[in-house]
């Protein structure tokens, strides 16, 4: 089977700042990293591969520098990697992003010319955009079932899928379906491995990232990039701080007393 893992390059989270004048993310000088949950996606793919064999294909849409996160995916053990990159993809919202990814996956499936079963694994959400929309939209575009917020996953027999979905901790449901399927995983599902040194050496020596542009995907301009995006960004801003922090002092008893008083005064209880 083929396992597609969708990998997004994101800015290292602790460093993200918004330019107060232009209301846009300041990206210069910020190191890029692989979206953390996408590592969980690869780890799941690797464990499936170790158990029953599979070809792991990492795919990303992004600028040419996103090659680095794909090389990291290859170092972890992905077999192949594709970067969908083109100026025409720029400015994509989640819909246009998932459309490009769907085109990529369809092309890879078509070119491989086999009737192998497949599945797609996404992270649940990206630490920058944070919408958790790309996975679901991608499943719609591919017209396959989807299970989001997956914290436990199992493949049984030929194509039986059993997944534990934890949308909220009080709402855990077990869902069964059949391949093909798209799942988006939570970080609780596993602990991603670090690539071994041999994994890195072989990624750079024996594997390579294949670049695909809009033409290669036969993408229509109306559905990709800025033109294909339905989202209109009204404003990006840092929420203003309301009220001040209050620091209580004194003995524990005194502090608890003041705290209770304050909470009562503020009608919190």
């Amino acid at each position, binding site marked *: 089977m083929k396992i597609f893992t969708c990998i997004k390059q994101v800015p290292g989270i602790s460093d993200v700042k918004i330019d107060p004048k232009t209301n846009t993310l300041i990206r210069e000088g910020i190191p890029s990293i692989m979206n953390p949950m996408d590592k969980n996606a690869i780890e799941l793919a690797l464990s499936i591969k170790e158990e029953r064999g599979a070809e792991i294909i990492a795919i990303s849409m992004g600028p040419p520098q996103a090659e680095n996160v794909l090389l990291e995916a290859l170092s972890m053990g992905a077999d192949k990697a594709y970067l969908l990159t083109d100026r025409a993809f720029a400015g994509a919202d989640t819909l246009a992003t998932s459309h490009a990814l769907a085109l990529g996956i369809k092309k890879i499936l078509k070119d491989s010319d086999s009737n192998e079963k497949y599945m797609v694994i996404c992270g649940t959400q990206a630490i920058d955009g944070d919408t958790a929309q790309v996975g679901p939209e991608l499943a719609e575009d591919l017209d396959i079932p989807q299970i989001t917020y997956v914290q436990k996953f199992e493949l049984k027999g030929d194509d039986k899928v059993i997944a534990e979905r934890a949308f909220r901790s009080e709402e855990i449901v077990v869902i069964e379906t059949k391949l093909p399927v798209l799942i988006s995983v939570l970080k609780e599902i596993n602990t991603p491995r670090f690539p071994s040194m041999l994994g890195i*050496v072989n*990624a750079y020596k024996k594997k390579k990232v294949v670049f695909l542009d809009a033409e290669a995907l036969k993408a229509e301009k109306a559905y990709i990039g800025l033109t294909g995006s339905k989202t209109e960004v009204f404003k990006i801003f840092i929420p203003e701080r309301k009220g001040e922090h209050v620091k209580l002092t004194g003995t524990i008893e005194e502090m608890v007393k003041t705290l209770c008083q304050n909470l009562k005064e503020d009608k919190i209880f």
Partner: protein
Amino acid sequence: MDFSLTKKQQMIRKITREFSEEYIAHIAEESDQNSQLDPTVMKEMKRMKYFGTCIPEEYGGAGLHDDTISFCIITEEIGRIDASWSITTGVHCSVVAYPLYIFGTEEQKQEFLIPLAKGDKIGAFCITEANAGSDAGGVETNAYLDGDEWVINGSKIFATNGGIAETLLLVVKTGEKGRRKEFTVFIVDANTPGYSVGVREDKLGVRASNTSELVFQDMRVPKENDLGGIGKGFRIGLQILDYGRILMAAQCVGLGQAAIEASIKYANERVQFGQPIGKFQGIQWKIADMGVAVECSRLLTYQAAWMCDNKLDYGMIGSMAKLKASEAAMQATHDAVQIHGAYGLMKAYAVERYFRDAKMAEIYEGTSEIQRMVIAQKLLRRGY
């Protein structure tokens, strides 16, 4: 000339840094205090091939035998977090596994190298004895041939990994022709009868690293276990140490780097006389000098590694790198403690450990005096 690292080397640095910070940093102080290498870290480092760094994939390694710069980066990044770990992997790879790869026969590689490179077994290299420190020619542990076996008697001290090693390279006296002594390197399995581990040293620095005495009493080693030929031990031993020195230099670069990072952070945070101490020129000059010293050692270390990969004679530059890097690490960690004031003397601050770890490096793998002696001899003989 191009000073940039390749993308692969950058990835190796990034991953090793992330790994060291996540797995080792939070227990480094504890490991130092109870002199123990953490088994979880050990297991993960084996999986990540840090015990087979400079060995080709076909012998179970990571395939960095032709990229000593990457090996340096790895050692540097581990050393930046905990020098006890970088000396453990550094010694295992550079002076045990690598010589087996370079000088070993195919049978020896199959039997001894593969388990070492996979991390299934730990290795130690033993030359130092009670009466043979800087003067390796004083080695008294000896072997005589009895039928198909060499019988070894004597003892070694200060062997890194000694107490945890299962495969050892021993430099042993195998003959004496007049005043000329002959030495041979033997590959020894620690399960051989007559082999025993003596005292485990309680040290100033790299405390979690195992440094032990080893004793051999009528230990019988198969005839075919010599590495690189009978009587070739001195030359091979020196060659092994030449290579190992580059990695010990790299470890010191990491220690120096750690000292600077801690100092910059502290100098910007600690306020005295109404301003961060980093605003005082007395502190600024220390920071500047640390930066210069560590950057010089990094350049020399990478140069030695680059020369090694390009099959150039790197002996003298390697000595220079080891000398400079260990003294730079000593200077930088010394200044780091000073910048931290009394806090720097406390176990709660890592600079206290860095300082102790750095001192070790001025002594092992050839003392600073011996490096100066070697460098001077080469310069005086060959010119510059």
